[in-house]
């Protein structure tokens, strides 16, 4: 980067070799792209391009007889009257609220507790244990929790043995609880990741701030409210953004455990898109839902980028 202005001076000082200089400056300008280009091209080819193409796909109809017939905005019109999409959207909102609270509280709480431990060996042990579930593939997490929720050999056996028959619910078969059962399984392997992020952020808090506050006579709660939390704000905003986006895209465990059932009780937007595209062979309609969902997510990202560019420390 520092070489760029230097070379301009150089080229200006020797007008004789203008052709050479021009050729060289062209090479200078091309150099960054040799580094940046391959990765960006691959990404555009595999993800960016197809993502844009989805928009065109969303304007077409594919129902057995019509292969990619242009139908304008009819798919979008259909989404507005689609009660399953509405139910899925509502589930995504429930999921977002759950994941904005429970895993963040668990992750932040455990990070605060761990950071107060004196022995680094113990810190490491807890950190490792809490993160361990996050290394397990969704495929296994889903099956494992299916076994746990199984009405015949699962946790209900244990609950009734303890006399807690009221708690022996139809975890995945009862429409009132199915979504929350899947969310619990997802939370199990998710909050450890947040703990790691919060631990990293806590270790970056300037210790001078704590000392200054303590000299001013701040108690433990005052320290937390006036030093720890403000220092964690950028991390909290980032984690919140990540949670919102990922909650709107959630599919893996639902695909394995319930496929959106029973009777759409655990349907989410991504699951509905997958069903429409893969099971119902209706890529046009699936694309319309996907485009709307991505637009929703982009609003959050756009807000975040805008605030960053405005110079906010978020």
């Amino acid at each position: 980067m520092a070489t760029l202005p230097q070379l301009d001076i150089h080229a200006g000082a020797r007008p004789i070799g203008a052709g050479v200089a021009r050729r060289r400056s062209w090479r200078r300008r091309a150099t960054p792209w040799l580094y940046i280009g391959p990765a960006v091209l691959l990404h555009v080819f595999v993800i960016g391009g197809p993502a844009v193409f989805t928009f065109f796909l969303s304007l077409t109809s594919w129902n057995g007889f019509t292969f990619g017939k242009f139908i304008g905005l009819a798919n979008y019109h259909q989404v507005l009257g689609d009660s399953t999409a509405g139910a899925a959207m509502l589930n995504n909102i429930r999921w977002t609220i759950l994941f904005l609270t429970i895993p963040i509280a668990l992750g932040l709480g455990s990070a605060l507790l761990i950071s107060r431990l004196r022995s680094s060996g113990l810190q490491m042990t807890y950190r490792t244990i809490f993160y361990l579930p996050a290394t397990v593939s969704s495929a296994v997490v889903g099956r494992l929790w299916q076994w746990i929720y199984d009405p015949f050999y699962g946790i209900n056996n244990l609950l009734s043995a303890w006399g807690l028959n009221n708690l022996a619910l139809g975890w995945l078969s009862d429409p009132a609880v199915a979504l929350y059962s899947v969310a619990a399984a997802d939370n199990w392997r998710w909050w450890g990741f947040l703990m790691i992020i919060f631990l990293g952020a806590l270790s970056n808090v300037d210790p001078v701030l704590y000392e200054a506050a303590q000299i001013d006579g701040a108690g433990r709660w005052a320290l937390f409210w006036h030093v720890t939390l403000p220092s964690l704000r950028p991390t909290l905003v980032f984690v919140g953004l990540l949670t919102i986006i990922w909650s709107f895209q959630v599919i893996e465990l639902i695909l394995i455990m319930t496929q959106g059932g029973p009777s759409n009780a655990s349907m989410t937007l991504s699951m509905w898109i997958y069903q429409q595209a893969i099971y119902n062979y209706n890529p046009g309609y699936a694309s319309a839902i996907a485009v709307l969902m991505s637009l929703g997510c982009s609003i959050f990202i756009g807000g975040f980028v805008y605030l960053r560019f405005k110079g906010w420390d978020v």
Partner: protein
Amino acid sequence: MVTQVDRTRSLGGSGARALRAAGLRGLLHVPLIILAITALFPLALLFVNSVKSDAAIKANAFTLPDGLHWDNFVHAWQTANYGPAFRNSLIVSVASVALVCLLGGLCAYGLARFQMRAVNIILVYLLFSFSLPGLLYLVPLFILWHVLGLIDTLQGIILIYTAQYLPFSIMLLRSYFLGLPRDLEEAARIDGASEFGVFRRIIIPLAWPAFASVGLIVGIWTWNEFVFALTFLPSQDMQTVAVRYTSFSGQYTQDLAASTAAATIMILPAMVLFLLLQKRFIAGMTAGSIRA
């Protein structure tokens, strides 16, 4: 702990106060231990059941083993057809990691060292690509891969994984490169090294911890991924372990002994890798995500 006691005493506090402080510190462990149990219990359940007989699991999954049925693992390995699946997963993970490190490293270096307006545009593009749900581009990508004959090929899924994990890796590597001192690079340039020579001789050796983190994280992600692998690798011989496991445990839901053993085989490589290199792994996880 000793220093804590000494300090309170020298401040004029009584021994009782130090004891109470130690007791309070001990209380920290109560919630931590409860959380540790909830984190470990399902895993322990999986491991214990993987050596039980099928009948014993179905009678009650929450009991200790009725004997060590190690043959569950042999049976699972054979019926799930894990041999080719492990080979496929290894090729896919290693190749994806190598490509991500190569392309991501070059790109991150470019984005960290050259000042152009395009840098900000690309950074915003990468940030936005985080918000693109996989299902947004899955269908067109499937059509494209079909046209190119990349369905059911390992190259096809390697390209997809590389593209998917590039944004995260570029963000992580870039923030690492930004923190590196410039002096060595300048010195190498004065000595006449080319731009690429600087990258190869100076940047890569200095930034290997960041590359190691990226490699580990991407390796474990690709090992575990299954939605795209399931869609783009339809035939059994081409499937990765995660896909084999998903369809096997779906077909053989009746044979719980084989299913739990297959699950254990599937998760052990990633888990062992994490336990061996967890410091590197966690450092990478935090560095990349906070600065993105």
